[in-house]
């Protein structure tokens, strides 16, 4: 009886191969560096500030819960030098705009449809966020958004904010 299972497994791996080939397509990695340019522009705007970068997409469920929290982050820590940048990774920007209509954002949003910035930051999951200190280096990051861990997320930000105050605006 067990012999039959082996043939079964061979059949499955064959089917698996067929599906792979039929829809393999070279993802057009045409040079759309506008996403990276937009990022650079923003990072230079926020020169000397602590930056919280959040990678999100309309189809990612935890993002719906992280937006209100990021709004409150902005109103509470804006004047202490926190800037928030949300990088949208939707393939179809219409879905992202629809998401923003239902989940208002007080912070800046840039679009990275090809996922260039995401690969640069070597994203490990969705959503994922990074805390950059005042000289722009990543000091903390977390994958996912769990409302129980909010105090930890905020602690990371406050710590970065309290670091050596760079003489800035």
């Amino acid at each position, binding site marked *: 009886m*067990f012999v039959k299972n082996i043939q079964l*497994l061979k059949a499955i*791996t064959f089917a698996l191969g067929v599906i792979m080939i039929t829809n393999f397509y070279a993802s057009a990695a045409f040079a759309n560096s506008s996403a990276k340019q937009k990022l650079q522009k923003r990072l230079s705007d926020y020169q000397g500030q602590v930056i919280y970068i959040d*990678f999100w*997409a309309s*189809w*990612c469920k935890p993002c719906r819960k992280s937006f209100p929290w990021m709004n409150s982050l902005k109103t509470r820590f804006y004047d202490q030098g926190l800037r928030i940048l949300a990088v949208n*990774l*939707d*393939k*179809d920007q219409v*879905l992202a705009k629809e998401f923003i209509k239902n989940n208002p954002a007080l912070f800046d949003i840039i679009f990275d449809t090809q*996922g260039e910035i*995401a*690969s640069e930051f070597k*994203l*490990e*999951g*969705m959503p*994922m966020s990074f805390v950059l200190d005042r000289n722009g280096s990543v000091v903390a990051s977390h994958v996912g958004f769990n409302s129980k861990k909010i105090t930890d997320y905020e602690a990371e930000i406050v710590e970065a904010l309290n670091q050596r105050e760079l003489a800035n605006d």
Partner: protein
Amino acid sequence: MIKIIPAQINCSIILKVLMILCTLLASGCSNLGVKPWERDLLAKPEMALTSSPIEAGLDEHIYFSKEATSGGRSFAGGGCGCN
């Protein structure tokens, strides 16, 4: 009292299957898959492996009471006297 792991379980079969699952896991899977931000289509409700649990439960009940096979997608136990 429920016998936790009845002695007569044919361990060899389970071990064989576990071994196959692991090889499948280790070898084939590392290059398959998508980047975390490429899960937009997979996140659609209709792409869930069991898109309607209610329907799956109702079907499972019908086929459990009309056929000699059950489970596969989920536990096989029927939980009713209908078979």
